[in-house]
């Protein structure tokens, strides 16, 4: 069970801050006349905090859309240009722990990319949602980093010195892991279960009652990305793996090898996928 402190702070959390260069880049695009909407969507879809903000507003009671919205492109269409601009320009920016936040963002972007590649191989249809869930899968870590920077440093110490994996260290320190934190956050923002269920279970796809395939894809992508060396600043170790996840996905060994081989080269040139670098 999460501590009351964590639960209370999460309930009052209206949004997450973006890394400064992402916020700057997206703001510039939003205020430049005639920026194609697809270009703005791609930039927003590369920043977990900004993407979550758009989804949250599209799913808010103010709009009252009858169905939950689980796609970024759909959210942007529903919100409209003026609202999107307003949300972008009023977004908060990360002011401390920048190195950790950047590493977290880089990891999220890499998982989003590898998950999409895996999704194609296993024949999943909704590639946009796979990419989005990959991008958002560590939202809980960002929330813990923002809300409890001091305690988050204790987690980092436990990983480094006590050799705990980061999820176990979080549970020791906060009484809850980042996957569950993300789930609570997504629910409080009224995001649909098709988004938060695979996020909650990205370390335990075997326990997912809904969205097993997507949770398994994110789990496998997360492992590949960490194995290829795109982890967080303190958490560079390959996490415990749910052995059956990739078998249940039905991906062949050859396909998996190809994805890993490709990812290894690609992740070395991550700046080619980084919309916010010069």
């Amino acid at each position, binding site marked *: 069970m999460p501590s009351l402190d964590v639960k209370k702070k999460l309930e009052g959390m209206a949004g997450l801050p973006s890394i400064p260069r992402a916020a700057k880049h997206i703001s510039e695009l939003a205020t430049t006349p005639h920026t*194609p909407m*697809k*270009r703005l969507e*791609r*930039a927003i*879809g*590369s920043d977990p905090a900004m993407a979550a903000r758009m989804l949250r507003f599209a799913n808010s009671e103010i709009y009252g859309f009858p169905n939950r919205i689980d796609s970024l492109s759909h959210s942007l269409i529903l919100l409209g240009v003026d609202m999107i601009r307003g949300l972008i320009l009023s977004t908060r920016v990360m002011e401390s722990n920048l190195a950790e936040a950047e590493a977290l963002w880089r990891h999220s972007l890499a998982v989003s*990319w590898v998950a999409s590649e895996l999704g194609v191989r296993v024949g999943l249809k909704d590639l946009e949602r796979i*990419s989005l869930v990959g991008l958002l899968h560590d939202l809980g870590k960002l929330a813990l980093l923002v809300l409890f920077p001091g305690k988050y440093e204790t987690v980092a110490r436990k990983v480094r010195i006590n*050799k705990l*994996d980061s999820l176990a260290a979080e549970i020791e320190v906060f009484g809850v892991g980042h996957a569950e934190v993300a789930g609570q956050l997504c629910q409080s923002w009224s995001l649909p279960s098709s988004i938060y269920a695979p996020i909650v279970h990205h370390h335990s796809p075997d326990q997912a009652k809904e969205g097993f395939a997507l949770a398994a894809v994110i789990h496998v992508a997360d*492992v*590949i990305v*960490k*194995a*290829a*060396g795109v*982890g967080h600043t303190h958490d*560079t*170790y*390959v*996490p*415990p*793996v749910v*052995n059956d996840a*990739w078998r249940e996905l039905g991906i062949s*060994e050859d396909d*998996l*090898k190809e994805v*890993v*081989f*490709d990812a*290894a*080269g*690609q992740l*070395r*040139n991550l*700046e*080619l*996928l*980084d*919309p916010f670098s010069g």
Partner: protein
Amino acid sequence: MPAVLTDKLKVGMKLCQALYTDKGKVYLPAGTILDEKLLAELSRARYKYVRVDSSSLSHKKAAPPASDFEDRLEERFSRVALCPFLRLIKEALKAAMTTGSQG
């Protein structure tokens, strides 16, 4: 075949995979060399990233020594039991390194 974010494409890059429309028709065939006009079109299109020929990239990083890579790889795998799945990933990463794909 590196994937490059659409916004990062540059004139002279060569597509190594065809791009298709939503209806499944070829929009740009593999081998197309991008020019200003195509870059402008792609900036308005739905593709998040495209695959280009690595020889058409203007910058390439020098790979660090293989021993450094192997040490880092061993360190990353040091806290987890090596099941068949992880062994496969580790071997694929090593293979990528020996063929120059990995740094």
